[in-house]
């Protein structure tokens, strides 16, 4: 955790709303991204707001020195589950969230675009728990330890599920390349 984070957290714990606002501004984007990819759908904005309020109230239980972002993201992940009831519903929204932006260039590299599409399809077809881990690792750029905290999983589980899911994606891409 950066020293600015540590300082802002310490001041927020002392009840300084300006200090907390620094953290809110800094981490709204990753919090929103996580909520969206975990299936918050149209509730993502509310989830972020609720998570920041809950995190503020939980600050007295925050362990000084612990990284702030994964601690916050864990609250976001739980809040997403509270906001969107039903695993299947969240699952549908999480899959729908994985969608490609229309190509910016008029003549995109066709092979590359196709490969990206296949990769996205493969990601969508993974089991939800595996996909959540890959989203944390590669879409939010979290470390294994941060992912473990965020998803309330042991680090060993994050490691093993990551390598298993990556192997599955590789296998899918290889098949597509052979078929092409």
């Amino acid at each position, binding site marked *: 955790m950066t020293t600015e984070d540590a300082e802002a957290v310490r001041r927020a714990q002392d009840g300084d*709303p300006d200090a*907390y*606002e620094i953290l*809110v*501004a800094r981490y*709204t*984007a990753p*919090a*929103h*991204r996580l909520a*969206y990819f975990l299936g918050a759908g149209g509730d*993502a*904005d509310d989830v*972020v*707001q609720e998570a*920041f*309020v809950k995190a*503020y*109230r939980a600050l007295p239980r925050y362990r000084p020195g612990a990284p702030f972002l994964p601690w916050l993201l864990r609250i976001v992940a*739980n809040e997403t*589950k509270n906001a969107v*009831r*039903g*695993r*299947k519903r969240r699952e549908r929204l999480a899959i729908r*969230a*994985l*969608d*490609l*932006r229309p190509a910016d260039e008029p003549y995109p590299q066709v092979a590359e675009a196709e*490969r*990206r599409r296949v*990769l*996205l399809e493969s*990601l969508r077809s993974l*089991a*939800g*728990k595996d996909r959540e881990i*890959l989203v944390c*690792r*590669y*879409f939010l*750029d979290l470390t294994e330890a941060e992912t473990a905290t965020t998803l*309330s*999983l*042991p680090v060993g*589980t994050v490691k093993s599920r990551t390598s298993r899911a*990556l192997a599955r*994606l*590789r296998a899918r*891409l290889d098949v597509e390349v052979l078929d092409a």
Partner: protein
Amino acid sequence: MPDIERELRELATTVVVPEPPDVRAAVRARIETPSPRPARPVRLRWVAAVVAALLAATLIASPEARAAVAHVFRFAGVDVQWGSNADDAPVVPESPLPGAEPTDLTAAQAQAEFEVSVPTRLGDPDRVVVADDARVVSLLYNRSGRPIRLDEFDGRLEPIFVKTVDVMAVPTPLKGGPAWWLPGPHTVRYVDRDGVVRDETARLAASTLIWESDGVSFRLEGNIDRAEAIRIADSLRR
């Protein structure tokens, strides 16, 4: 072959994500207001009321029992209700757990939001049942005519099982933490996702060990003694 991890990171930049909201003002307004609790959804209030009523009805036993109730109540989703009214519970003939359906271990592990554990002492289960949108996963064994059942459930939610027992729970330390041994038969009540309390009286009329680990609660039931229950519980592997 291109590195798949690098490809995933690149993919992340081409996936559409809506603009993040600016929640600063809203968060600030809420944290500066001293009334913290937003209204809870009706359903949760109702569940809480049921649980509170059940608990209130039970706080009649000895101080030790009260302490145990308090302890078990905080114990990740399992409530123990003391008293001798196990037979008064209304019998619900249909499947006590909502949406219970047979499946296999792999499918259950994929469906459940928690990590499903298997006790190596028992090995792979003979049957697997998931219930309530995979909030509960049950592993069923038949070991030389002795049925054994291990329920695993998402203990991070509201209290799910409510038991009525007429015996004292015996604190039973496991390798990974505390557990409680409930010798003798009991009624199980389950609060489902919709807040409906379901009674189950037809379960294995046997002893039970309950414990919690990493946010998952376990209930091991069968015609086994305490020592064997401890051995099974200590052999859990994820």
